[in-house]
């Protein structure tokens, strides 16, 4: 097996997904055109061509605490990577599938609890979840297999606000296959895209310097700048609020050359 940390650094891993089985992975594989990475043989690992989206499927034979660490190494994920755990679950009091964010994880065997961040998640429906099956099944309880171990490991590795524990809860009386596949897909697509966009917004707030730095890199790639102009550009960008930069990006991309970019930024600072 290839040494995990020696992967090339030319890409930035933006999103890592963890699921429990192939049926949960299918949506992500199709939506992001993920391909299996056969050189990683401990877990099924997938990534897209750009290598900015990665996915791992938990294995019953391996402790779930290993999954996040292994995926982090394979994907070369950094502190700015968004982590999304996704699983299907069942609730008796539903008529239609519901996308839910988990804000309290209960390890019922030891009665330990973990509390995923809820920053900026007020628009989503939220509930608690058990990490293992309950002896006396409460019909209003969500069970997400392995989630306690996975979250406990993840919260030590990455920024807590960028870990999202998500589930698509189905009406309990139905089997997964009974529910219209289209409905499931459209719910997944809608909410997972929303979470991904939200996490992108959150990263600007959490890592403003990196945003400015990445912005500089992007602009430098798109336009030609002399060394002097690069310095001017760098100094100009440092004076910007990252959100103002984000709002200006579309306009800047329409400009013709580096000089125009610099003049535009100068004017914006006046």
């Amino acid at each position, binding site marked *: 097996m290839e040494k995990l940390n020696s992967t090339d650094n030319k890409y930035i891993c933006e999103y890592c997904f963890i699921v429990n089985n192939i049926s949960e992975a299918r949506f992500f594989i199709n939506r992001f055109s993920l391909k299996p990475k056969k050189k990683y043989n401990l877990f099924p690992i997938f990534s897209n061509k750009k290598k900015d989206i990665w996915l791992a499927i938990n294995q019953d034979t391996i402790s779930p605490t290993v999954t996040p660490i292994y995926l982090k190494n394979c994907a070369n994920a950094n502190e700015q990577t968004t982590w999304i755990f996704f699983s299907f679950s069942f609730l008796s009091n539903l008529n239609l599938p519901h996308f839910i964010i988990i*804000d309290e994880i209960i390890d019922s065997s030891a009665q330990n*609890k973990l*509390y995923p*961040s*809820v920053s900026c*998640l*007020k628009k989503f429906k*939220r509930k608690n979840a058990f990490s293992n099956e309950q002896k006396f099944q409460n019909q209003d309880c969500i069970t997400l297999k392995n989630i306690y171990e996975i979250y406990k490991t993840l919260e030590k590795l990455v*920024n807590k606000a960028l870990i999202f524990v998500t589930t698509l809860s189905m009406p309990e009386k139905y089997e997964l296959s009974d529910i219209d596949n289209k409905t499931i897909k459209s719910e997944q697509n809608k909410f997972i895209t929303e979470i991904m966009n939200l996490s992108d917004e959150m990263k600007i707030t959490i890592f403003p310097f990196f945003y400015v730095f990445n912005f500089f890199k992007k602009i430098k790639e798109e336009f030609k700048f002399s060394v002097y102009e690069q310095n001017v550009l760098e100094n100009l960008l*440092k004076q910007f609020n990252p959100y103002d930069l984000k709002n200006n990006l579309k306009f800047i991309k329409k400009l013709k050359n580096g000089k125009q970019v610099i003049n535009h930024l100068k004017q914006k600072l006046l």
Partner: protein
Amino acid sequence: MINTIYVENEIKDHLRTLSILSKFKRSRVIYIHKYSEIFNKKKQSFRLQKKDPLLILAKKNNNFVLKAPEGFGIGASENYYFSHMYNCIYDCKYCFLQGLYSSANYLVFVNYEDFLTQIKNLVTRNKGKSITFFSGYDCDSLAMEKVTNFAVFFLKNYLQSKNITYEFRTKSLQIHPFLKNEPTENIIIAYSLLPEDFANKFDVKVPSINLRIKSLKQLTSLGWKIGLRFDPLIYNKNWKISYKELINTILNEIDMNYLHSVSFGSLRFPKQIFSTISNMYPGDELFSYNFEKRDNVYSYKDEVEEEMISFCKNLIHKKVKKDVQIFSCTPY
């Protein structure tokens, strides 16, 4: 609107907890063992939480009242501070809490009685000495008053003694507990103030300077003692004009007979806090002026600090009777 409230199991039936929860009927309530499971954990983002803060209700078990840092005081021989809450609803760019905590969520300790017990113990221990107790160090004393009712409780139950002064430091307009009570010599309501042009840039989500001055006027008109806290003093090329205008406006508006004290402290940060906060605001003008590092504290150069403080002191002296107490406040 606070969307989520975490409540420690131990105080889930506390009357104050129930009263606070009753004000947030639509919020999701999650019961926790200890507030430290949520608050100030590693790998959290202060700036992100500031966008959407949640509330934590907890019981404080020790360190109710702490010794104030060296250089923090308004004339008493002993200075202590207490905080019934950590963090603040305002978002001042220079606020040291941003660097102190990794969490911007509001943490309210509901066992107010224990704060007063410790104050009483300290008064007994320091018998005969003059003591000031400051509220508003880790939070704004009054900004969350509508939720916490801390000032209401305090005014009903505090220990009166001629040697003791209590200062409520604030930028808030929530002064109703004082308006409903008789004024007392022991309590000062002290307002942190910045010139309007500075406040518009740096005092984010804070009541305007004009409204703060209006509150000061209201308090003095009822006989409450007030304090003026020009802390931090912030530098820019027009600082003299700005501070002159601010000080003149205030002194023209309020009844000087009730001015207890004035204090000045220039902008300063402990080293670690400076690096954390300045990284939160890349390119912000607040941090673009040259700071100097002295004894692990980042501040303006000595001569700048001295010039600013003496300029403002002179403005005060010109207008105010001589016995008003003026202090330089330079903790850390």
